[in-house]
């Protein structure tokens, strides 16, 4: 491929706001202990960093592997250059979500609606059986939930996709 026609020169500035990925010297340490690197296709943080650096916007846009990350932070523990690979993965996800609404994870609408991704505090009966009191969760407090929702609505991705939260 021809970099001059196909690459966005400063993509990394958009994707990695910390600039840490520039420290990467492709040593591969981030790869070998990563659970998701066992996947197919494997999650190869090193390669993602490289694509960001080259500015391979289209390819990066299509990358699904960042979403396979288990967030264990082992890459971060191991990276000798302090590139913070896990943060990089989150940044790529954010960049994708920001620029592609189909990437926006549906779970955020649930959080918006009820504060959690799970149906927390709907099992009061079971709790009572175990000797637990009902939990003072936000979905039981309309005022706070509203404040929470209003707050989220001021944040960029929620605001940009407000139709999802209607």
């Amino acid at each position: 491929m021809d970099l001059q026609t196909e690459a966005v020169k400063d993509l990394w500035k958009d994707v990695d706001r910390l600039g840490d990925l520039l420290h990467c010297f492709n040593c591969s340490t981030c790869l070998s202990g990563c659970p998701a690197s066992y996947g197919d296709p494997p999650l190869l943080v090193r390669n993602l960093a490289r694509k960001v650096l080259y500015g391979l916007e289209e390819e990066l846009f299509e990358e699904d592997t960042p979403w396979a990350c288990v967030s264990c932070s082992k890459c971060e523990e191991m990276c000798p250059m302090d590139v913070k690979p896990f943060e990089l993965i989150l940044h790529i996800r954010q960049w994708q979500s920001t620029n592609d609404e189909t990437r926006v994870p549906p779970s955020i609408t649930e959080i918006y609606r009820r504060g959690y991704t799970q149906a927390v505090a709907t099992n009061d009966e079971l709790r009572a059986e175990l000797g637990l009191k009902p939990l003072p969760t936000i979905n039981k407090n309309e005022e706070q939930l509203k404040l929470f929702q209003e707050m989220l609505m001021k944040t960029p991705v929620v605001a940009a996709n407000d139709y999802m939260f209607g």
Partner: protein
Amino acid sequence: MEFCLFLGCNTPAVRPDVERAIRATMEELGVDLIDTDNYVCCPAFGSFPSTDEESWLATSGWNLSLAEEKQRDILVQCGSCYSSLRMGREHLMHDKKMQKRINELLEPTGRSVQGGSKIRHVTEVLYREITPAKIAEKVTHSLEGLHGIVQYPCHTLFPSEVVGFEDSPREPKGMRELVEALGATVDSYSLERQCCGGAGGFMKSTPEQAIQFAKNKFDAILEETKADFIAVSCITCLMHMENVQNTINKQIGEEKYKIPVFDYNQLLALCMGKDPKEVSAITNMPRDAIHDHIAKVAA
């Protein structure tokens, strides 16, 4: 000692027996737990942290502000909650601009984030503050005669300079010593420090490989240890390590993998003589053998 208990979502929604266990053991150990009223999602890494920094930190900030209001540190059991809250807090602490912005967003609530509350994992509190020795004193129903293995929550190990309460993330000892304090023998195996593989999108995006990944771990457990149980300290590990055993069994058509998995607080509660029906009730992997053993030893 007093903490704001942050339960996250899976524990109260799916495994309230774990919550019961935590409340029971902490009370016994003299730790007061305050409910974090109106807390929200930590947020899970697959949610706001994957969309934009601001919504992530706003959500983190929401939770942190609740604890700060009560001037307590936050006590977490779920590894993801621990990690997300911790990272959220750190980002806010390091990025003053962002902190300012989040506090603007929080303004209508009358709360703010100043960094007053720290995020504590239950293992850390048990290991560092309570100490295994003190725990051993509280044991009335020993696990003596049982072999167990431990699953460290990745999130409590890495990155070590930020989270590390272990002397060495290469050779973590906390969980092991805590389980040993209950009288059990803790076996080692080669993949001990490997992630359970349950968090994030691994299972979703490449289930086949994720199951194989877990299977390797269980094979190592079966081959290299005499494990009667697995002790975890993260709700994701707990659920995943139970579920995946059943999934594998289904795939291979035999009941080969059936090691019961406990949250550490569940084991601790049992050893304190708590009723299994309260603190160890919900599971899809039979635990009777362990419950019976404890009863037998105690008798």
